[in-house]
């Protein structure tokens, strides 16, 4: 998918001008991408159907206690991870609105889309993790208890946050829809409906700006609450060593930002390259994101240091068991890889920031690797406190968890499905906001 990158207006064909940003055009590369992500999604579906028919015995999860397993595994890790990614989208978008950061505007819609897709995936991951998925959907609406930290996850994160993000994306895209609706194409009706009466009048523009500003302002606290509530899912559990703590909520927020901005960097770089939008997504955008990521990474590194120090200074027996497993034991490889990806890249980004030599390729690598680190850390938050966090002397105090193909398949399916959704969106709507200069406000 490297051939078709020219702005469509400049290459008229079949009498009608092409829609911008590759919308409505399907290259061979895109079809390959579509095929791969579809296959990936089907793999996930097969995994899930297997789990559904056999029961969750098909996963590697088992009971804590006498079975010596972990009852939450990569599904919950994925929930936390995906919800984390969603952080970045709305944050970036909100920051752009609130502070009018022009350099980042090109990434705003990507960020919003990423948020929506990530939240959808997080929601699916939750359903996948339920023993009674249908009952889960019904009973949460019917009985959900505010006292349970899941109330926040379900009502605020999935429902409120997702809805707000969709509204936000919608409102910020109406202008583009209105523009595109003027251009004859198969999608004209679709754009017209999307625009829903937007005429790009000055009045509408200012109203639009006002609305999105306030919505962004309203979303920000929602975001902190949502991510904190996810942190509370773990941080409030006094009976699970390694989880209980006040740092859990802020750490969740920060790591959410890390993974989200990491993803955005990668996403932006791909779009920039594929659609030839080096101008719209300039190096400044990457510099912004890089600096932002650097700050988050430094803060998170600080949290990691605090975490390690607290773990090794005077731990309780159970804390020590988990600490040992993380620092030197079974999970050490993952722990140190994760920490390394986070800390090393903080330094690397710092270097780029100081020298002001921002390199997109390097940032993509960093974006990917910090996500590996973030995923690793999510797993390390969820799993070791179960396998190594027993307070009663079950077994030798050490349980085990190794995911089965079903879980890996579902994970692959989720990522594929997410990519597929993004790919489809990009064929239906410009992934970068159309430039103001092209269309002046209607007076």
């Amino acid at each position, binding site marked *: 998918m490297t051939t078709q990158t020219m702005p469509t207006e400049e290459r008229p064909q079949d009498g009608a001008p092409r829609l911008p940003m590759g919308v409505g055009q399907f290259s061979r590369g895109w079809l390959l991408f579509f095929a791969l992500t579809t296959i990936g999604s089907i793999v996930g579906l097969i995994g899930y159907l297997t789990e559904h028919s056999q029961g*969750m*015995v098909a996963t590697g999860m088992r009971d804590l206690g006498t079975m010596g397993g972990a009852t939450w595994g990569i599904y919950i890790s994925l929930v936390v991870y995906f919800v984390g990614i969603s952080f970045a989208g709305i944050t970036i978008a909100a920051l752009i609105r609130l502070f009018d950061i022009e350099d980042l505007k090109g990434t705003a819609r990507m960020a919003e889309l990423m948020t929506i897709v990530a939240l959808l995936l997080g929601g699916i991951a939750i359903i996948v993790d339920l*023993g009674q998925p249908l009952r889960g959907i019904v009973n949460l609406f019917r009985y959900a*208890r505010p006292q*349970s930290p*899941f109330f926040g996850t379900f009502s605020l994160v999935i429902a409120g946050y997702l809805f707000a993000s969709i509204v936000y994306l919608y409102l910020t895209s109406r202008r583009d829809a209105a523009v595109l609706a003027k251009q004859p194409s198969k999608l004209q009706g679709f754009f017209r409906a999307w625009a829903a009466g937007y005429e790009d009048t000055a009045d509408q523009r200012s109203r639009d700006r006002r609305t999105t500003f306030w919505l962004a302002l309203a979303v920000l606290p929602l975001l902190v609450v949502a991510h904190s509530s996810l942190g509370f*899912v773990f941080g409030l*559990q006094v009976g699970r060593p390694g989880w209980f703590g006040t740092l859990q909520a802020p750490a969740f927020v920060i790591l959410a930002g890390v993974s989200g901005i990491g993803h955005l960097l990668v996403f932006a770089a791909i779009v920039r390259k594929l659609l030839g939008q080096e101008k719209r997504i300039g190096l400044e955008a990457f510099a912004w994101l890089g600096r932002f990521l650097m700050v988050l990474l430094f803060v998170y590194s600080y949290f990691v240091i605090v975490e390690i120090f607290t773990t090794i200074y005077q731990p309780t027996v159970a804390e020590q068991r988990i600490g040992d497993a993380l620092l030197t034991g079974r999970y050490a490889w993952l722990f140190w890889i994760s920490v390394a990806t986070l800390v090393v890249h903080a330094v690397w980004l710092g270097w780029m920031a100081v020298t002001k030599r921002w390199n997109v390729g390097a940032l993509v690598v960093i974006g990917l690797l910090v996500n590996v680190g973030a995923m690793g850390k999510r797993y390390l938050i969820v799993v070791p406190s179960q396998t190594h966090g027993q307070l009663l*002397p079950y077994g030798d105090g050490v349980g085990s968890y190794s995911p089965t193909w079903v879980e890996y398949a579902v994970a692959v399916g989720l990522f594929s499905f997410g990519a597929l959704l993004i790919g489809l969106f990009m064929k239906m709507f410009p992934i970068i906001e159309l430039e103001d200069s092209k269309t002046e406000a209607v007076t």
Partner: protein
Amino acid sequence: MTRFGMAVDLDRCQGCRACVEACKIENNTPSSVFWMHVFRLEDGEYPNTHIDFLPRPCQHCNNAPCVKVCPVGARFKREDGLVLTDYDRCIGCRYCEVACPYGVNYFNWRSPDDAFADYQIPFDDPDVASVTGGAVPAYKNPDHDRKYGDEQRLTSGSAHQKGVMEKCTFCVHRVEQGLLPACVDTCPVGALKFGDIEDDETPISQFIRSNNTFQLLEDLGTDPSVVYVGGTAPSSTAREIERPTTGVDR
């Protein structure tokens, strides 16, 4: 107010796991599920070794973390102290299980039929089914088809449906008939005692009052309704020996 509780006399417990087996049969729990588990613990170095036994039913905490975290109120605590699971409401998120510091929750990873299959006793054998009607297990206890308490929820027994959480119920179905929980009833040495621990006059209250006691993981503030008498809480160096096998491949 009644608060049902259990007293475990560690000076008497001989770690035989009769309670475990009585529970499994009374409540029809499938393979690898031990609502009542008895730790056999070893501590110290040869020759200053000692062995302790520690029965572990659900602690039916007064301040139960599992109840707090349940997103849909499927795990609930009754006014009489029993912490139960509504099998018809549970969504299978297993939050109660990670919230519980005692490891007493058992999830139905499989359909009950599949879980019993580990025992390699085909209960659907025609000769057996001719007597049992194909009940799984063959010794299926009909009490568990009923609903209990004011709340009238399906809370008794095991192996109802796949994908929901279960745990010790203090034998709610027996308690409501005025019987002792199956584990208490079968204990050969009378190490388990059951009754109202809030009423000072009950034998169990008197027993608890007149002895040294501890609760498991007292520091966590869960305030268990299971009180251990005699002995000491397991030390951090205690090692579990003679673990039961679990049929679920891990």
